[in-house]
């Protein structure tokens, strides 16, 4: 039977969700080809832009497109759609991020002739329902899934996460959907349309708040750097040279923490008996911790607490993450040399038996157009004629 490296995935997406879904499939060993317009995917201009490269390249595109091959193909024309059809004929999975109406129309157009094909549609709101056609952004994705309202200071405006992480979460679910549909196809022989909405994926990524509403009718508030109005300490705290996270929700962890901070009497105080009671007097507890914490560095505090089995970490800046000894020791980084000497990005998130062992940088525009179409059985003359009429873009001088 076919393994991961036999899987052919066409990535037609121009949003983070679909791009991350197909990147995950690539890091699991699948053969993933990015299909983008002849003038380049809009992801190529998505912030963050790398100003050291000329023209400025998108960090999002370079990261999300690693391990993919690239074909520049305008499939809005009939000739282009025929060429895409040749690739779809040989594909197991196609990933799209087009708007709901377009995704459904595309699915109808490709499905009849290719019953085994799996089409994974990643959108913000899904393909059906009253909001299916609504517009979205990274910020509204945070709003839709309910994380925006609960993140930040209760006395200020709600806060988004620093990146398009909601869309990434939609992407992981889309990759799960792709593999689940492949497993089902083994049994039925049929492909299907897999409809993943980022809003729902984020709504199902809440710890307890939906059940809190249905079971108790309570609204979950923002809690600043404390945890969820329910446990203390599970929070970011200041120390001498910055911030740490200390998490001691269980009784054993609380006792270990008090002992480690030289405050054993706090472990016996009935007012601090549970993580919940501690939450209501968190200010007072933090005040008692402060002299110990503020007179030590992040490293001192974290090593001291971890030695007592209290979950804790320094709040690292992104710069510090790049030189973190744990990630380094686990060979986590990939090195896209084209983006500068020593430049790093996350590589394979976890190693599967089928994962690639060598890094492959994101494709330049049209880099693999000719070879991919050749593999699909297209004659050289046909490829040249498609290039001449602007339907496909080839790499190098032909590339616009």
């Amino acid at each position: 039977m076919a393994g991961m490296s036999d899987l052919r995935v066409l990535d037609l997406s121009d949003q983070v969700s679909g791009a991350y879904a197909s990147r995950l499939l690539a890091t699991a060993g699948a053969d993933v080809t990015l299909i983008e317009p002849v003038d380049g995917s809009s992801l190529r201009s998505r912030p963050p832009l790398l100003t050291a490269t000329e023209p400025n390249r998108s960090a999002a595109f370079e990261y999300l497109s690693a391990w993919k091959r690239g074909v520049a193909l305008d499939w809005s024309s009939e000739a282009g759609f025929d060429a895409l059809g040749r690739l779809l004929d040989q594909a197991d999975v196609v990933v799209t991020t087009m708007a709901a109406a377009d995704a459904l129309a595309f699915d109808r157009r490709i499905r009849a002739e290719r019953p085994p094909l799996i089409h994974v549609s990643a959108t913000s709101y899904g393909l059906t329902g009253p909001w299916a056609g609504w517009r979205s952004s990274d910020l509204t994705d945070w709003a839709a899934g309910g994380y925006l309202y609960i993140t930040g200071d209760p006395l200020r405006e709600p806060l988004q996460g620093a990146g398009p992480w909601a869309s990434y979460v939609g992407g992981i679910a889309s990759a799960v959907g792709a593999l689940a549909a492949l497993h089902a196809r083994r049994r039925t022989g049929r492909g299907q349309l897999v409809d993943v909405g980022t809003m729902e994926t984020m709504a199902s990524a809440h710890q307890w708040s939906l059940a809190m509403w249905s079971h108790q009718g309570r609204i979950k508030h923002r809690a600043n750097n404390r945890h969820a109005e329910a446990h203390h300490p599970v929070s970011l705290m200041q120390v001498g040279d910055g911030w740490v996270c200390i998490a001691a929700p269980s009784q054993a962890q609380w006792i270990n923490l008090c002992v480690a901070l030289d405050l054993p009497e706090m472990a016996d105080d009935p007012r601090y008996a549970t993580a919940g009671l501690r939450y209501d007097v968190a200010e007072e507890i933090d005040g008692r911790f402060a002299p110990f914490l503020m007179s030590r560095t992040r490293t001192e505090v974290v090593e001291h607490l971890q030695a007592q089995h209290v979950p804790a970490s320094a709040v690292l800046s992104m710069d510090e993450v790049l030189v973190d000894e744990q990630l380094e020791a686990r060979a986590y980084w990939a090195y896209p040399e084209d983006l500068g000497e020593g430049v790093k990005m996350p590589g394979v998130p976890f190693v599967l038996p089928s994962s690639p062992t060598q890094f492959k940088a994101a494709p330049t525009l049209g880099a693999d157009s000719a070879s991919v179409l050749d593999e699909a059985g297209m004659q050289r003359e046909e490829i040249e004629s498609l290039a001449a009429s602007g339907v496909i873009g080839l790499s190098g001088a032909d590339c616009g």
Partner: protein
Amino acid sequence: MAEGMLSGVRVVEFGYAWAGPLVGRTLGDLGADVIKLEQDVSRGGHLPDDPVLRAALDDWRRGEAVEPMLRASVFPDGEPEPEPWNRAGIFNKHNRNKRGLCADLKSASGKKIWRRLVKQSDVIVDNFSPRGVKNLGIDYETVREWNPGIISVSCTGYGHTGPFRQRVSYGPVLEAHSGAASATGYVEGGPMKMGHAFPDPIGGLHGAFAVLAALWERDATGQGCFVDLSQLQTYTSVAGDLVLETSAQGQAPARGNRSRSCAPQGVYRCRDESPDARESMDMWIAITIEDDDAWKRFTILVGDIRLEDDRFRDTSGRFEYHDEIDALINEWTRPQDRFELAERLQAADITALPAMTNGDLVQSAHLRDRGFIVEWDQPGVGVYEYGGFPIHFSDWGPTEMHPAPQLGGDNRQICEELGFSVEEIDGFVADGTLVDQPPLTGGR
């Protein structure tokens, strides 16, 4: 049970808290036979016989105060008893579509059960630390001796190798370590954690992907495998573009709610509401104006002459005067209903959405239309609504929802399937290996 997409796949999930249980739940939602393996203390104990806690509980019952720990456990109507270990909404929500086996793996009988379970399963999932995995005897080196085809996916915080492999963590600890917490925050403020332990669902969903990929590969090669999934790595992966940017540019991204490519974008205050009929709460709408055309549509809709200022005509001007624009937008949104406002803005092709509360999500007409809000009859709890499965398949019906297992609720059935006789099973109960109650605890 109707045939599911993963029918025939048996998963043993030895998970606690959230990430591990989410791997199991995702596979269970897809139709795998997921056995949740627990210890007697896995769900906490009986309610402690402690005067302080009892007083807090009585307050709760009178509706006068809320003991926060009980709030987070999400007992129906705030009532933990009887059998609080079977009534916590947070547990039942994470563990639908699984069967429950509660066994002491350290006993001789427990080892027998574990060995047979491994032999008759396809996948083992855990989210303990490497030390915990070894102590429990559920490590890959041990189990593959019994079943070379077994797939073991271990979702630790830091991974099974490296200098920090023995560190203990929860999601927020990994948020700190990954750089995500420092990248998030108000423009003038410090780092900020997310409203829930966000690394957990990200680790859990990646874990489900790992299981499905490993199963697919095993079908081709016949080989099982060990997947050493570090949740630090899966969380850093979703910040991959920011990490790459920092590496290439030498500076961290800016905090806040603004966009880096368009303006204005922000979260604006709307009319307060009292969703739970108790207190007035602040409500908000997120708005993104992608380009000059959207800005024109927006200013026409708002109808405030001050926004039609020439200084705001293009993106760079709107970035320059973002604060001034924000103040005017806030003035406009403040008295308005956030849902009506979102409808009007979307009708004008402007990107906007209310900052959904947990109550909004459960009541959302959109999510209900898509069948995302589900309910099931949880034994001893009753019928309540929950968030459903976020992946929709055109060729399979909606995901069936079966209640979360009672602690040890399927002990007998599972042991019978493993081929133990009724007498043997009686013996496992008698020697204390199979249990269906947490140990009695005197104090807190």
